[in-house]
């Protein structure tokens, strides 16, 4: 479904701030996979999602979605295949536009926009039904400006928008990190509900190792711009937070050893 082949991405090339964000990253995602991604700060998790979405272009490597090489395809053109929810609840929605207008924008992802009405009558029923699923009473507030909603409501709405037209890949970049624990778990269970119901291929970054183990069928750990650990199925189900912490330590230990080797 999605394949990353030998991706290299470096920021600020040729300056003192040069930073290798992705280093020969390879990942093959099967249809219907729900992959959780963990890793320390600067491991390249967000960069990976941004490379898939087309926010950044890689220096090397190829990105193939459903057999189409999208490596050089502009962000807005790729959007027809990709649904995204961001860490910051403010980014996923247009604050000055109301709920139905936001949903209508999402309902035209990947379609040609013409001079027809921005929100069509028939759509409103569909939106109402979908909003009901969220169980946040938003279906009665369809003409409320999104800027007046709470972070959790906005994140739930963004999730709905990202999946309104079924994406080939859903990218979730720590989409519950900015929410309080209760709202976060609500949004996470909504995520699971929507993705399993429509069998959406999903990649979810999280800082919460419990969530990383609990959700999805596959888990990858990143460090220094590549994948250092990749488990699925039964093996993943049987993971514990302790195992993951151990893996983390091992990876950073290895790095430490390398540093020492360089120094001596």
């Amino acid at each position, binding site marked *: 479904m999605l394949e990353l082949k030998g991706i290299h991405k470096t920021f600020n090339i040729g300056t003192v701030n040069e930073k290798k964000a992705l280093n020969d990253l390879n990942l093959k995602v099967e249809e219907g996979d729900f992959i959780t991604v963990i890793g320390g700060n600067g491991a390249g998790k967000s960069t990976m999602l941004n490379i898939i979405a087309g926010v950044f272009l890689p220096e090397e490597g190829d990105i193939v979605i459903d057999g189409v090489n999208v490596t050089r395809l502009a962000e807005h053109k790729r959007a027809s295949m990709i649904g995204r929810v961001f860490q910051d609840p403010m980014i996923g929605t247009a604050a000055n536009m109301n709920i139905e207008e936001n949903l209508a*924008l999402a309902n035209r992802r990947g379609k040609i926009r*013409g001079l*027809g*009405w921005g*929100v069509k009558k028939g759509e409103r029923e569909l939106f109402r039904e979908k909003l009901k699923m969220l169980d946040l009473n938003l279906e009665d507030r369809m003409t409320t400006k999104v*800027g007046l909603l*709470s972070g959790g409501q906005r994140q739930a709405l963004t999730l709905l928008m990202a999946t309104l037209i079924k994406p080939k890949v859903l990218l979730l970049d720590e989409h519950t990190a900015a929410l309080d624990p209760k709202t976060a778990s609500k949004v996470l269970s909504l995520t699971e509900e929507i993705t399993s119901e429509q069998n959406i291929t999903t990649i979810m970054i999280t800082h919460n190792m419990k969530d990383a183990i609990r959700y999805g069928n596959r888990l990858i750990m990143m460090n220094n711009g590549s994948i250092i650990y990749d488990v699925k199925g039964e093996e993943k189900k049987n993971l514990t937070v302790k195992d993951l912490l151990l893996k983390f330590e091992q990876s950073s230990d290895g790095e430490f050893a390398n540093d020492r080797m360089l120094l001596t």
Partner: protein
Amino acid sequence: MDVFFSTFLTGANQGLLWAVLAIGVYISYRILDFADLTVEGSFASGGATAGIIMSLSKDFVATGAAAGMFMSVISILCAIVVGGLAGLVTGLLNTKLKIAPILAGILTMTGLYSVNLMIMGIGTGGAKNNIALGPIGTLFTKIGDVMPIPKNYIILIIGILTAAIVIAILYWFFGTEVGSAMRATGNNEKMAKAQGINTQNSKILGLVVSNALVALSGALVAHQQSNASVTMGVGAIVIGLAAIIIGESIISAKFPFWARLASIVIGSLIYRIIISYIYLAGVDSEYVKLLTAIMVVVALAIPLIKEKVGPIIKKKREAKNKNSNTPSDSEPPADNETNENTLADNAEETNVKSAKEV
């Protein structure tokens, strides 16, 4: 007609014709969030284009009312096209060459200065810095030839009609898919891209529409004063902003979109009428620009002042209320789109609510 009333009428005339400019500025400044200085040049381009067409048409058009009116309309339509092209240049500079909005606008504006001189010099083999609309008359005098109404009232009627048509078209346009995409682009570009909106095209189209309206305003003003000059657009952006800000101060963000556009027209009217009385009082036109700039600065600073001073006043009032032991009515939050506080407050309120719901 007494001086007081005729001054009011002049102000109202100017206000209506310049309102179209302010609506154009609203599209770039508020909807696209793009501080576009092209306006200063494209306004004069509109005047220059209308001027040269009216001036040249004396050679091959009979001076009858119908022919004159026809040429007037043609001159205004051409001005709209030229203005749109100016917006296109700024849009391409910004989106394709990645030049910052302000600089892209300044570059186009600077280039337009020469272009405007050339436009007005057509037929003379050189450049001209102003042009009279010529012996065949203007849109307003031609209408006056067929309708026995004073020119001031003709301008008033045409001004209201133009503003109403512009508002109606924009109200429709921003409700369409393309218009919605444009609003999303200005509101949240990252979100727009994630929803598959070509934000570059949105910006370019927005700037084309914005500057086309600005040039329409320039053409109307040229017809009204029977003259166009290369400097007629100086300070236009600040005048547009003044109208927008005055308009926003009289309505709330909850108003529908068409009412917000209408408020700009009212803002422009208020501004121009005030300015006419300032002229009447004998203030030199050079100083009016300074007054306008100060007015806009003050208006722009008001939200910040409210934010800083508001809590202090509230505290004092609460202290006072405690002393007098009367229950305080908490002041409703100010309804201003630009007031971040309102959004935050409401979001907090709904936050509490949603926490319960969740």
